[in-house]
C-alpha cells in the first residue's frame, strides 16, 4: 500500500498546519482536562519526591489543580457562552452548557474529596500521594464523559473514571473489607462495561457510525428501511440500558453498590456517590437522549421504546432502594441504598423527557452533590482513633457534643428526604412536576409512587436525627476528627442546601441552561452540526 505523493515535504506541508489548528482547538475546548491531567502527573512526582511524612504536599498540589481546573471550566463558559455548543476534535468532543456544568461538578467533587481525605488518611495511617493522583485521574475521566460526542470517546472516558475508582475503593490494602469491596465493584463494573461495549457494537452495526449525532439519524432510518433490524437494535439498546443501569446503580442492577460503598474508605464513598454518579448520569443522558433520542418512544409498532425500560428501572430503583435502606444499621450501607433510590428519582427526569424533566435531573444532581457531601463529611469526622464511626449508633448524642455539626447533619438529612425548605425539596418538586406535566396516565402514577417513596425515606433519614438529639452518648468518646477543610465542606454544603431551598432561582437558571439542548424539538431532531454527518450514517439496506 502506498499513498501518492508520500514524502517529507508533503507531510510537513499538510501535517504542520493541521497540527496547529488542532492545538488551538484543544486549547479552546479541552483545557480543563489538560490542567487536571498535568496536575495528576505533578502529584505523582511530588509523591515520589516527598518523604513518607510529607505526602500531604501531593494533596495540596492536587487541590491546586482542581482549583485551576474549575477556573478553566468557568472561563470557558463565560468566554464562549454564546458560541456553544461547539463540536471539536473531529466530532469526538462536544462542549455545551450541560458538559461544562458536569465538568464543574466533577472538579468540585474532586476538590471536596481531597479536602475531606487528608485527615481521614492520617487517621487510617495510609496517606500516600498516589491517592490524590488517582482522584485526579478519575476526575479527568469524569470531565471527559459529559463531553463525549462519540461512543468511542464516551467508552474510554468511562473506563478511565471507573478503573481509577476501583483502585481507590481498594486503597486500604490492609483492610479486608476494602479489598472485598474493590473486587466486587471491579468485577461487576468490568462485566457491565463488557455489556455496554457489546451493545455499542450492535448499535454501530446498524447505524454504521459511532457518532451520537449519526446514531440519532441513522437508527430510525435503518429501521424504517428494513423493519427486521428492529430486533437487532432492540437487543443493542437493551444491552446499553442494562450497562448504564449498572453504572448509575439503578436497582436491580445495583448489587455492587452497598458492598462497594460500605467497604470503600469513606471519602471515596462520598466521591463515588457524588462524582461517579453525576458522571454516570451524564453518560446515560448522552447515550440515551443524544444518541438514541428518536428511539425513546416506539419506532416500529409493537416494539416499546427505551422509555418503558427506563421508567420501570426508575420505579424499581426508588422502591427497592428505600425499602432496603429501612433495615440497615451501617450508615454507609444505608446511604448506599439511599443513593440507589436517588438514582431512581433522577431517572424520572429522563423518563419525563420534557424541558422540566431535564432541568429537574440536572438540578437534582447539583443539589444532591451538596447534600451528600455534607452528610459524608460528618460521617468522616466520626471516624477517629479506634472508632470506625460508620454505624447509626455512632451518631448518638452528637447534638450535645457538637451542636453545630448535628444541626447541619439534620439539614442534610432533611434535604435528602426532600423536606422543605431544603434544596432536596426543590429538586424533587421539579422531577415530580415534570412527570405530572406530561399528562400521561402512567407517568402520573409513577409520580405518585415517587411521592410514596419520599414518605418512606423520611423515616430512615429521621433515624439519624433521632440518634443525634434523643439518644444519650456513651461517656468518654474521643473528640471528632475534624480539619479546616472538612469543616469548610460541612458548612458550605449546609449553607448551599438551605440557600437553594429558600432561593432556588439561580441554580434553576443554571440547570435550565444546561438542560436546554437536551429538550426534544418538535418534528425531526435539530442537527447540531450537519456538516459532521455527511459520512457513512444512515446506510440504506
Amino acid at each position, binding site marked *: 500500500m502506498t499513498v501518492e505523493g508520500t514524502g517529507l515535504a508533503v507531510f510537513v506541508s499538510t501535517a504542520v498546519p493541521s497540527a496547529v489548528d488542532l492545538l488551538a482547538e484543544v486549547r479552546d475546548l479541552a483545557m480543563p482536562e489538560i490542567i487536571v491531567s498535568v496536575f495528576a502527573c505533578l502529584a505523582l512526582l511530588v509523591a515520589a519526591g516527598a518523604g513518607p511524612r510529607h505526602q500531604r504536599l501531593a494533596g495540596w498540589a492536587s487541590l491546586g489543580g482542581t482549583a485551576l481546573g474549575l477556573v478553566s471550566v468557568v472561563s470557558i463558559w463565560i468566554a464562549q457562552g454564546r458560541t456553544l455548543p461547539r463540536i471539536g476534535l473531529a466530532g469526538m468532543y462536544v462542549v455545551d452548557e450541560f458538559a461544562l456544568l458536569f465538568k464543574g461538578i466533577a472538579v468540585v467533587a474532586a476538590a471536596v474529596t481531597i479536602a475531606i481525605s487528608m485527615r481521614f488518611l492520617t487517621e487510617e495511617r495510609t496517606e500516600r500521594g498516589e491517592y490524590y493522583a488517582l482522584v485526579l485521574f478519575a476526575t479527568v475521566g469524569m470531565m471527559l464523559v459529559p463531553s463525549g460526542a462519540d*461512543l*468511542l470517546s464516551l*467508552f*474510554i472516558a468511562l*473506563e478511565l473514571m471507573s*478503573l481509577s475508582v*476501583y*483502585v481507590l475503593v*481498594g486503597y486500604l*490494602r*490492609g*483492610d*479486608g473489607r476494602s*479489598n*472485598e469491596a*474493590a*473486587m466486587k465493584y*471491579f*468485577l461487576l463494573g*468490568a*462485566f457491565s*462495561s*463488557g*455489556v455496554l*461495549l*457489546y451493545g*455499542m*457494537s*450492535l448499535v*454501530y*452495526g446498524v447505524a*454504521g*457510525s*459511532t457518532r451520537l449525532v449519526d446514531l440519532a439519524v441513522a437508527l430510525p432510518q435503518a429501521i424504517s428501511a428494513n423493519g427486521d433490524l428492529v430486533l437487532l437494535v432492540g437487543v443493542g439498546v437493551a444491552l446499553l440500558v442494562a450497562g448504564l443501569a449498572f453504572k448509575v446503580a439503578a436497582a436491580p442492577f445495583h448489587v455492587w453498590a452497598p458492598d462497594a460503598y460500605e467497604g470503600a474508605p469513606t471519602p471515596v464513598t462520598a466521591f463515588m456517590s457524588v462524582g461517579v454518579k453525576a458522571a454516570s448520569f451524564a453518560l446515560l443522558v448522552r447515550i440515551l437522549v443524544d444518541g438514541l433520542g428518536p428511539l425513546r418512544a416506539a419506532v416500529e409498532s409493537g416494539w416499546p421504546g427505551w422509555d418503558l425500560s427506563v421508567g420501570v428501572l426508575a420505579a424499581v430503583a426508588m422502591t427497592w432502594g428505600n425499602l432496603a435502606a429501612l433495615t440497615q444499621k451501617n450508615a454507609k450501607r444505608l446511604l448506599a441504598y439511599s443513593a440507589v433510590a436517588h438514582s431512581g428519582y433522577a431517572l424520572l427526569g429522563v423518563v419525563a423527557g420534557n424541558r422540566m424533566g431535564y432541568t429537574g435531573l440536572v438540578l437534582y444532581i447539583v443539589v444532591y452533590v451538596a447534600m451528600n457531601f455534607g452528610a459524608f463529611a460528618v460521617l468522616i469526622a466520626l471516624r477517629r482513633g479506634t472508632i470506625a464511626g460508620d454505624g447509626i449508633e455512632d451518631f448518638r448524642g452528637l447534638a450535645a457534643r457538637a451542636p453545630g455539626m448535628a444541626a447541619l447533619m439534620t439539614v442534610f438529612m432533611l434535604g435528602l428526604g426532600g423536606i422543605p425548605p431544603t434544596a432536596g425539596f426543590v429538586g424533587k418538586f421539579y422531577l415530580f412536576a415534570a412527570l405530572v406535566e406530561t399528562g400521561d396516565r402512567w407517568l402520573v402514577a409513577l409520580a405518585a409512587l415517587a411521592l410514596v417513596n419520599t414518605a418512606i425515606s423520611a423515616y430512615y433519614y429521621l433515624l439519624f436525627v433521632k440518634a443525634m438529639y434523643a439518644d444519650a452518648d456513651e461517656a468518654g468518646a474521643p473528640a471528632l476528627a475534624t480539619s479546616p477543610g472538612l469543616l469548610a465542606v460541612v458548612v458550605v454544603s449546609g449553607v448551599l442546601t438551605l440557600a437553594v431551598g429558600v432561593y432556588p432561582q439561580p441554580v434553576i437558571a443554571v440547570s435550565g441552561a444546561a438542560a436546554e439542548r437536551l429538550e426534544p424539538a418538535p418534528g425531526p431532531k435539530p442537527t447540531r452540526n450537519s456538516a459532521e454527518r455527511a*459520512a*457513512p450514517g444512515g*446506510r440504506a439496506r
Partner: protein
Amino acid sequence: MLPITNFILLSAVIFSIGAVGVFFKRNIITILLCIELMLNAANLAFVAFASYFGDSTGQLFVFIVMTVAAAEAAVGLGLVIAIFRNRETLNVDEANILKL
C-alpha cells in the same frame, strides 16, 4: 467475504459463553478471563461491521478496547495480589514473597 451473519453469530455465541461464565465461576482470575471473552466477542462484532462498512471506526474502537483490556488486567491483577496478600500473608516480608 463471507456473509456477515456468520461473524456476528460467532460473536454472540462467545459473548454469551463469557457472560454465563462470569456468574458461574468462583475464582476471581477466571472471572476476569470470562470478561476478556466478552470484550473479545464485542471486538469481533466491531471488526466484522467495520469491514462490511469499509469504515475504520470499528477497528479503531477495537484498538482502544485492547488498551482498556490491558489496563483492566493490570488493575484487576493488582487487586488479586492485594487480596491474596491480605488474606494469606498479612505480614509477609521479602523472603516469603520470593518463596511464593
